[in-house]
């Protein structure tokens, strides 16, 4: 196994000089490694792109696949989540995320959901935040267009009045959905357990009692931090403290 990994890296490094200088060239090269089942080399090249500040949904998706194939479930789930944030409507990302999550040895299924927030979250799930924000802006501009017609040019017809109310309601709805999405993507900090062994403790210290054992690939919500520990909430609403190096923030 070790030999295979080293060989993979040697191939990756040797080929790296011949790679196209462009990021898309590196992406294609990484795909070639993947096709040759040199998953560690593929991970190496995909990660190079990420470390250069590049990102796209396919990049994270492919990196997630390469991690999954090389047996790193935690990193695979993390990459799929990052890909999903960039392209929430992609069915491939959704399918692979769900598939990968089946392999977490500890299942922590949510037991009770708030139906209202669940409804809003399911509505905004397939859309990107920027798209919702631009839709809100569109309605905002349209509303002000009607207001300018009404108060700037004294156009007082029923059409103007209806337009104002309609665009106001649409703006209200779009803004609400944008807020939900913003909360989901940015205000709620999510993390993924990436360590093979992860002890969740009752307090932010190694001396604190063990609350439970977590396994790679579990998704948590980060509630707070203290020193080297994050206070996390699992999907089944159990809480605990996890050392920061054992999870990665999405």
């Amino acid at each position, binding site marked *: 196994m070790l030999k295979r990994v080293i060989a993979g890296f040697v191939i990756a490094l040797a080929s790296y000089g011949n790679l196209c200088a462009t*990021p*898309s060239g590196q*992406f*294609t090269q990484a*795909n070639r490694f*993947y096709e040759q089942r040199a998953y560690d080399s593929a991970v190496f090249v995909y990660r190079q*792109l990420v470390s250069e*500040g*590049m*990102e*796209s*949904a*396919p*990049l994270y*998706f*492919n990196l997630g*696949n*390469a991690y*999954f194939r090389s047996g790193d479930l935690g990193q695979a789930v993390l990459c799929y989540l990052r890909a999903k944030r960039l*392209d929430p409507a992609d*069915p*491939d990302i959704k*399918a*692979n995320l*769900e*598939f*990968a999550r089946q392999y977490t*040895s*500890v*299942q*922590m*299924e949510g*037991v*009770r959901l708030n139906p209202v927030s669940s409804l809003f979250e399911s509505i905004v799930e397939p859309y990107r*935040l*920027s798209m919702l*924000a*631009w839709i809100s*802006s569109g309605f*905002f*501009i349209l*509303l*002000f*267009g009607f*207001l*300018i017609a009404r*108060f*700037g*040019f*004294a156009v007082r017809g029923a059409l103007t009045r209806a337009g104002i109310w309609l665009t106001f309601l649409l703006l209200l709805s779009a803004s609400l959905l944008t807020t939900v999405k*913003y909360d989901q993507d*940015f205000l709620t900090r999510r993390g993924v357990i990436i360590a093979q062994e992860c002890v969740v403790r009752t307090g932010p210290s190694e001396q604190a009692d063990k609350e*439970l*054992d977590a*396994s790679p690939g579990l998704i948590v919500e980060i509630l707070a931090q203290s020193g080297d520990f994050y206070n996390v909430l699992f999907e*089944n*609403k*159990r809480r605990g403290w996890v050392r920061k190096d054992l999870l990665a923030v999405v």
Partner: protein
Amino acid sequence: MTGRPDMRHFVRTAYFASLLAILTAAGMVSAQTSPQLEVVVTLTQETISLDEQAILEVEVKGSTQDMPSPSLPTLPMFEIYSQGRSTNISYVNGVVEASVTNRYLLVPSKAGTYPIENISVVYQNRRYVGNSVTLTVVSRGASVSPQLERRALDTVGNSKDYFLEASVDNRNPYVSQQVTLTLKLFIAVQYYGSPELVEPTTTGFWTELLGTRGPYQQRVNDRTYRVIERKYALFPTATGEQTIGRATITVTVQSRQQNQRRDPFDIFGMLGAGEEVQIRSQSLTVNVKSLPVEGRPGDFSGTVGRFTLKATPTKREVEVNQPVSVNFLINGVGNIKSVAEPVIPDLPDFRVYKASSNESVSKLDERLGGTRTFEEVFIPKRPGQLVVPAVSFSYFDPEAGQYRTARTEPITLNVIRTEGYAAAQEVPYSAPDSKISADARDIRYIKEDPGDLGHREGLLLTSPLYLMVNAAPVLALMVAVLLRRRREKLSGDIGYARSRRASREARRRLARAAQLATVSTSEQFFGESGQALLSFISDKLNVSPHGLTSDRIQDLLVDHSADPKLVQDILAFLDRCSFARYAPASVSQSDIDQALADAEQLMMRLEEVRF
């Protein structure tokens, strides 16, 4: 004439014969088409204590909507209460399928074993009898285990208002053998809302929820509890001692204070918010045995349970180099999701491809099981009677404690020689499911297109472009409102309008005067120059230029705090203009140029006055 009665007799006989035939046929048809009913009797619990009740369900199903009600036999040992009925009707291919389920609550009055039989319905003069069931009623409290009775008591021996009981059906299972975990919430006081459960941690187990039941009533230590039950199928993934963690239920219950000192206005008991309590179950330890090494078949891949294996080809006759699918169906009880694909040996006469696999999970009698189907594509390489040999699948039967092997029957395929067939011809074949579907057993393939591969973008909501785009309409509205107000003021307030345009009008007149600044047109020049100043003053002050005498101009300008020197200069300039208009011969070009310069200077000074 003698033939007529015979004829009539013949006709009459034929008539009755036909009628009889039609009626008989109709009777046969109606007998054939009259719907057959089925009566299925079930009991929710086969054993109850004297403190408990059982639910008897009588389901009548058949191809009619006009479903009769069942009649129950006399059951003297029970009080029987109807619990209502539910109807389910479906139309499939024009055929009505209906089922009506009547529920009865049976309250026992004496312990014993009671067969319940002869529950029947009568439909179209036929009686349909249901199956028999037996209900065992045990003495009071006999169905409750001593352990449960202890759990229902607190440390000082008082009966608990609520507790959460966890139990497993097998403490010594084999690895991968199902262990059923049962969580039971016992609650004897009023509770509000729905209890919120934090599932127990089951590290070291593969877990599947079997279902939730209740609330139903059960008596423990002579106290009636409402019970909500939740069951899980756990499959140990490691040997040795494995711990099932504690489950926690958070529920709002009627507080003890509330219970004792009830608010007289709280008529429904709902006004009080209650007390939120956390109820925790005990943790459980299971000692997981490893599978025996002895007798382990070579193809054993770790599947535990009881299964059957069946192979079905889609066709038995096929041309050379054409695919034929064979479905290998594994069915049984156990962790169906962990069932591995049967191993197909190397076959020199076939090329074999894996096409797809799917599974359906069932949860019958609290046992997880189901069906897993593997589709394999076989492509025969040569013509003849080719045989797909028996394929075996080994599993461990935990009930018997030994390994077993299920085998398919060999499949003989009649492979037809095609025109132009040449031995060892290889026809490329792509499996039908190269793009793996969502429920497939593998991840979806990587993407070739890198997408919008670029540097990470900041948050759009704080980007300058986004803020500008959103600020623009606000500014536009403000500008539009201001412009409209100005327009309205200009059109409604003549004084304001004149004042606003005074400067422009005066400048226009001065410009015209500059065009007339020659000796030959000196009369018009001085007229325009004087008018320019007069119109400016009259417009600014909203007065008529015709009534403006020198005294009036002086008064008006002084009232608006104009510099007295400016007032004198203006009056002097206006006098000079009047004089020049009436004595044009005395005007030189230099006088005109000087007057134009003075007019412009006076205009500038006037514009500084606050009117």
